[in-house]
């Protein structure tokens, strides 16, 4: 299954990452679920605290970039902290079989759902055998 799947397992072919040394900002790598169906890929990302206006999703040269800016509006003095809201950034290398024009994105309750569809040529086809 692994060699047939359309995303790479492991991190061997990591897409271009942002130069961390020059950037003063810190980024969080949001958690994702990636599910492949016969129709295409569904990428679900948790981006809590991001506004719809501050969310950027783009595909450039086969690389999908998800970027979200967070405005923290915490009030009062901190008593106890478990998380820090930071900007989100994550990239994925998309396989060539994805039809980039058909991508759809939904954003609700801090979760981004991207649906990417496979190009017609890459879909599995069932061929009926005629009985003579």
């Amino acid at each position, binding site marked *: 299954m692994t060699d047939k799947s359309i995303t790479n397992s492991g991190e061997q072919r990591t897409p271009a990452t942002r130069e961390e040394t020059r950037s003063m900002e810190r980024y969080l790598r949001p958690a994702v*679920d990636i599910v492949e169906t016969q129709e295409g890929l569904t990428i679900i990302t948790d981006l809590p605290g991001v506004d719809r206006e501050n969310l950027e999703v783009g595909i450039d040269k086969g690389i999908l970039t998800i970027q979200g800016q967070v405005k923290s509006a915490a009030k009062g003095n*901190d008593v106890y902290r478990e998380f820090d809201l930071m900007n989100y950034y994550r990239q994925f290398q998309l396989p060539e079989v994805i039809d980039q024009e058909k991508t759809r994105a939904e954003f609700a*309750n*801090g979760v981004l759902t991207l649906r990417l569809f496979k190009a017609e040529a890459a879909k599995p086809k069932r061929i009926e055998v005629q009985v003579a």
Partner: protein
Amino acid sequence: MANWEMFRELDNLRREVDEAFRGVGLGRVLAPQFLTGAGTKRFPLVNISEDASDVFVEALVPGIDPKAVEISVLRNTLTLSGERKAPETEKTHVWHRNERGIGKFSRTIELPAEIDPNRITAQCRDGLLTVTLSKAETAKPKKIAVSVS
């Protein structure tokens, strides 16, 4: 002021230790193994802050319908519970990444002050839940005017 910071650090340490040992008691050892109960991962993550009159609790609840989050208060504890549902997918699928957890959650947090149970508001925006709890009158600092005789 340095003293105050030290107590805060101690309080944080106590919270961390409480959290680490939650569910490790004897009751859990004797309980049947197949009832796994609550997961070991903390969910949702919370931040607690306060000012003179209110306590603010922020929790990360992405992907949860705000109406389905249950918030309850008992004395000075706040309980958040609900369920994060699995994404809807077709039957024939392959998982390439599975980093987001799913399932039911319940978390109880100790609040830093006595609160007034009748004045609590909760707001959920983009997966970030903010609960504002008013401190009880007895827990608020009171100004006392000095009268000059």
